Structures are given as C-alpha cells and as structure tokens.
C-alpha cells in the first residue's frame, strides 16, 4: 500500500495518546489467501511461537519453517511500525507442499492452521530438533470406557493439537467443552467388547482431558455438511467465549491451568466457500484487528459482537478459532 499519511492503526493510537507498543503490519491479499493470512497473524502474536521460530536453527531452506521464519524476522525488523507485507514466499512454499491450497480458491482457515502446525512439527523432527510446536500445542485426552456388566473401566490415551467443538444456539465454550466430555452409552448394535466378560456388553464411555496444552486452540465446528442442500453450510450460532478460561472437562488429578484469550480468527460471510477471514489479537493489553492489509485498534467490547447471531444461517462475523495461552 505504502500510501501517504498515517494509517488507520497509527491514527487509533494517536487518539489514545499512546505509542505503538510494537509493529503492526498487515498482509496483502490478491488471491483469496485471507484464510492463511489470519492464521499467520494469530501465530505471530503467540509470543512463544514467535520466539521459538525466530531463534530456531534451520537446516534446509526448502521448508515452510524457513520461509515463515524469514517473514517473521522481516516483520520484527521492519523500519516502519505499520505498513503492508507480502506473504508470497510462505504461501508459495505451502502451495507446493499441499496441492489443496495450490489455487485461488477460498479455503478453511482451520484446515490450513492444522496442516501448518503439523508440517512445522514434521520439519523440526526431520532435522533432528526438538519439536517446540509439539510442546506448545499438544495436549492429551483419555477415553474411559466402563462395561455396565462387570463395571471395569478401560482407558485409552490420545494426543491432540486442537479441540473441535460442536456448536448449538446460545451455547458457550464451557458448555461445548462439557458436551465434548459427555457420557455416551454404547448399546444395541454398537455394544463394546469387554475383555473381562469376553463378550459384547453395554458400556458408558467419555473423553476427558488428561494433559492440557500450553496453547489451547478451540475450533468451533461452524461448517456443517447439509444432506439436503448437498453442500457445506455455516452455522452462525451465537457462541460465547470468555477472555479467561478454566477447563471443566478434565480428569480428576489434572494439572490446573488458567487460560487467557490472545487471538481469535473470525469468519464473515455465508459459507466457507464465500466468505472472509480476519484475525483479532491481543497485544500489550490492546486488541488489534488484522483484516488482510487493513489494521486497526478495536475496543474489547468488539469481542462480544463476534460471538455470532441469533439465526442459524447468516453472514455475521463469528468467532471461529480461539487461541488461549496457559498462564500459571
């Protein structure tokens, strides 16, 4: 952009009489990459992620890791505190490695986020480095299954990089987490094979979080496939999420973690094939909105406006992916 005069974000800070605490740079978008731009901004404002990535010794330039590191370093060392950057190099590498993104189509921001995190994790391990990506994002949940006949409980642990939560009208993250860990009964044709009884039995099963991650990513399942319409539709339900969160679906002796919201990827529009993503991040106590190249300071009250709408289908901006950091 590079135009004359102060940008919106500069004007916003001028109005409060404050200096920009750090650089706030937008990303240009010429080919529908807002789904990726919002992810790259959210991760940039994850302090630990930024720190580890910038300081990482990288063996091969032929990696997403190296392109992303270059982008972040350019951002940190930029002469101007505001402006617009190009994410061309990072995106080229992504498009080469994953043909799903190798076009000008809209994509699901969550799909990109998970692919990117897993890709970075692979690249770190491939070069023999410790994966700080795993340390930051990986949590563990355990599925407990109780045979109703002999009442023995079997456990199965699994790791996760994010939690995908179902949404209902007027629910909250907390109620969605509770529903995630609800007791489900396995009966009828879906009976559970109990090793102790040596036959199929009715059982109750539930999934609880055993090791909460340092960075908790909550993905709201707003895109649902409709059999009737034969395509994905967006559920714009109002889902309230708090700035501070304590998990309510953990095992009994689980380490307690208090989480603080630091970023949110918002989706606007009627569906993921026709829509727009932006990122809202918390930086030095301020909330900043990154809408591709347009950057502005926003009021904390805006968070409430992106909970969703009272109608099931709609185009209103909805919080879609929430990023929480564990504070101790």
């Amino acid at each position, binding site marked *: 952009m590079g135009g004359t005069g102060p940008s919106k974000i500069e004007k916003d800070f001028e109005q409060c009489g404050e200096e920009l605490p750090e650089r706030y740079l937008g990303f240009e978008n010429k080919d529908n990459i807002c789904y990726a731009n919002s992810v790259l901004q959210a991760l940039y404002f994850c302090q630990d992620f930024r720190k580890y990535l910038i300081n990482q010794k990288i063996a091969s330039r032929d990696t997403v890791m190296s392109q992303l590191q270059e982008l972040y370093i350019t951002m940190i060392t930029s002469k101007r505190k505001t402006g617009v950057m190009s994410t061309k190099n990072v995106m080229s590498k992504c498009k080469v490695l994953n043909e799903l993104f190798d076009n000008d189509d809209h994509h699901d921001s969550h799909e990109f986020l998970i692919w990117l995190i897993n890709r970075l994790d692979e690249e770190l391990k491939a070069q023999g480095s410790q994966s700080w990506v795993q340390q930051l994002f990986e949590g563990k949940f355990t599925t407990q299954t109780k045979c*109703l006949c*002999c*009442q023995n409980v079997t456990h199965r642990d699994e790791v996760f990089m994010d939690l995908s939560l179902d949404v209902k009208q007027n629910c909250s993250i907390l109620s969605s987490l509770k529903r995630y860990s609800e007791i489900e*009964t396995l*009966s*009828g*044709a879906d*009976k559970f094979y109990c090793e102790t*009884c*040596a*036959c199929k039995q*009715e059982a109750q099963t539930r999934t609880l979080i055993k090791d909460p991650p340092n960075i908790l990513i909550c993905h709201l399942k707003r895109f649902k496939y409709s059999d009737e319409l034969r395509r994905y539709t967006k559920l714009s339900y109002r889902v309230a999420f708090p700035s501070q969160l304590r998990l309510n679906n953990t095992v009994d002796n689980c380490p307690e973690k208090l989480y603080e919201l630091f970023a949110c990827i918002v989706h606007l529009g009627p569906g993921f094939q026709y829509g727009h993503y932006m990122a809202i991040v918390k930086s030095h106590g301020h909330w900043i909105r990154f809408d591709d190249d347009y950057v502005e300071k926003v009021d904390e009250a805006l968070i409430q406006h992106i909970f969703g709408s009272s109608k099931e289908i709609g185009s209103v901006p909805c919080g879609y992916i929430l990023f929480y950091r564990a504070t101790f």
Partner: protein
Amino acid sequence: MKTRSKNISVLFRDGISQSHIKGVNRLQAFENHLFSAGRDGIVRQYDLNTLEIEHAYDRHIHWVSDIQIDATLGLLFSSSYDSTIAIWSLQSSEFATDPIRIIENHKDYIQTLKYIPSQRILYSGGQDYTLIRWEISNLDQIRSIKVLNTNGNSIWCIDADETGELIGMTFSNNTPKIMDTRGAKNFIDLKGHTDHARKIIISPDGRNCLTAGADKTIKLWDIGTHKVIESFHIHSDSVNALKMDWNTGTIFSGDRHGDVFKTEIISKTSEKVIENEFPVLDVLGINSDIWISDTNGDIKTIQSAETKTIKSLPHINKFEVCDNKKWIITKNSEGTVQTWNILTGESEKTENTFEEAVTAKNSGKATPSWFSVKIHLGSLMLEFSHSDSHMAEEDYNGKLINYGSVFMKRVFHHWLLKEEQKYREANPNAPQRISILNEGTSEIEKYVLILIQIAENIIESIYRCPINRLDTDENLPDIPMWVQRLIFSSKYKH
C-alpha cells in the same frame, strides 16, 4: 428384503460338567432344589441339602441371565443373552433335558424375567429396549404383547407385586420406574440413586420396594409417595445382588468387592456375613441359610457358621489363533495353557507359557482366516460363515487340502454316512461319492453343532445338537448350501 445367512458354530465342549465354568448369574430355590443360571449357557439343578447335581438344562448359546419357576406346573423359564427364552419341564427323568418350548421374540440380550404365578404371565426385558408380556396358560399358543418400548434404555431388572398389577423396572440409568398395569400405563419415577440403579424388588403387597446399584446404596421406598424411606450405606462397592425377606424385614445384599451383608430394616443393623474372593452376582436367603454365586462360577452357602461350596471348573479367558490357522492356544482362569488342533478337535495341556506355546505352533507363514473364535461361554467356540470358511487351503504332496472342507466333513461324518447309504440304496451301481467315508471318527464328534439363522445381525433361530447325534436327530434342519458345497465339492477329493 432382509439379508439372511445361516452360520455354523462348533462348541468345543465335551459333555456337561457337574459344576459351572465361569460366573453364575442367578440362583433360585424351589422345594429342596437349587437352580443356578450360568455364563456357560447352562442351568444346573442341585439338591439343596447334599449339593449333588440333579439335572442340567443345556440349550442356550450365550449367558443365561435369569430363571423363574412355575411351581404348580413344574416349569422352569430361562432367559439368555442369545435373545431366546427356554421353557423346561422340571419333571424330566433325563439328566440333561431339552426345553419343551423356545420363544424367540427379543432382538438382543434378554436381561431379566419375572413370572406372576397367579396370572401365569411371564415378563421379559432386555437390551432391545422392550418389555414383553407372555401368556403361558397355553403352551402350544403362547401369546405375547410388547408392553413397553423404552426409547433407547435397556431394561436391567424387573420385579412385580403378587398380583402383577405393579411392575418395577431398572434400566441402564439411575432412575427405576414403577408401572401400573391397570391404568393408562402410569409411571412413577424413583429418583434418588446417583449412579446406575441395577436391582429392584417389590413387596408382595405392592406398598414398598427396594432398589440398589452402583452408588453403593440400598434404598427402601414407599411406592405411594415415591419417596425414600431409608437409605442404607453399608457397601464399599456397587451392590449387584439383592434379595429381601418381606416377612422378617431382612435384606441380603452382595457387592462387586465380594462382601455380603444381612440387614435388619427395623433395627437398621447390618452384619457382614461373607467376604468373598470374587464379585458377588446373586444372593439367596433360605430359612437361616445364605447362598451366594460369584463371577468365578462358585456357589457357596453359609449354614450355621459352616461354609459349603460347589466349586466351579476353570474357564478359558485368553486365546490366540496361530498363523497357520490350524492351531489355537488357550489359557484358562487357573493359568493352564492348552493347544487345540482345530482339524482333529484334539487338545493337549502344555507346560509351556502361553507365548511359548504360540511360537511353537506358529509356522511363520500366514494362512487366510477361515473361522472366528468366541470364548464368552468359557469354552472355545468356533464360528463359520459362507464368506470365508473356504479360504484356507494347503498343498499337501500335490493334493489340495481345504481346511473348511476337511472340518465340515468331520462334523457331518455320521450324517454323511446316512446320506450316502440312502444314495446307494437309490443308485445301487453308483461309485462311492466321497472318500471321507474311509476315515474313522474324530475328536470333533464330542462337541456340539450350532446352526444359527441370522437376519441383519438379529438371531432368528437357533438349532443345536451334539455332533455325535446328527444322524439321529429328527429336527436337523437343511444343511446350508455353502456347507454342502464345501463337503461335496469335487475340488477337495482327498
């Protein structure tokens, strides 16, 4: 159009043992007889005083879950996880009797039975979410009505008052219900248990009931007010066995830890009478004697401070099929390891560990699977179906040996002899059709054949017969075509 299939199972169990193997789900007493319902599929009848076995009722192919008795007509009813109810005559002179009727209406495990002698009505409930009412007055025409469909809640226990007007039920949830059969099926919810409510007993006069369950409590209710009169917190684990003597106000209860308590309601005092090694499944109070059954299959009684036990036999609780699909290694509840030769039916104990035995019989070469294994009855049961029984073959000195073919020929050996005799009588000049007739008998003949007709995962009918009686049994149904192809195929001349 329902897809129907006929599957064959062979139960590798030789005869009927005197005691149970695996758990005993239920105990009932009648005159001086004790009846026990086993997870080995058999109901046994013992003399209450001598503990000698009198009869065995062997028909079910899965756990027997409950037994009820009609004293006047001398009938025994048994329900099973095989989704059938069998009706037996108590007056048979044979040791092992066949049922006089089998009723097949449930579509999943039957969990509980309750018989109302005054009305000759039998109620059954189970995991197909239905409660069925059977009229037993005419054994040749047993009418049934589906009384209740619970919309996704399995029925665990049923009881009734003397007249059968009030039916009490527990489900797979925490809230038992009382149903008044007189009115427009009014239901009373008994709210109070904080975990799975498993057992319910209704007083003969229908005024009170007793419930117990996984929240370790026993609760006494007033049915009229739907309220808990008394809650007993005496157990340290889930209460799974419950009986009540309403005349003396005495509760007998057993839990998953193995403890059995006797509680006097009026004085609210409890006494631990047995500390059992295994979880208790059922409890009975007969005069001043207490009887219990447990998950190991033992039946114990305490009679004036003396303990007498009908000790169970060990059951198979672990198996592995070797890669050549000709050997199965098993381990039982006593730790004994056995090797089974599937094609001959022979088994042998071995001093090897389980893992050593598997390695010893493996050949390092994988053969396709031609059967599946079940051990729910505590014995080895092999299941065969049309989809894969023909899959395992071996080249033996230039001859093609098909395991399924060899096995089925041995199972139907006597039947084949009879068929061949009939064929030869009709075609005197024809050559012998199959060379199996030159072979002698095999150990497989000691075992039991089960023929199941299944439509979309629901058992429609069950036929069972000891293999050595297949040629004389008049009720033998048509042998499934896929089995006949295996037996008569010219490919497998050997």
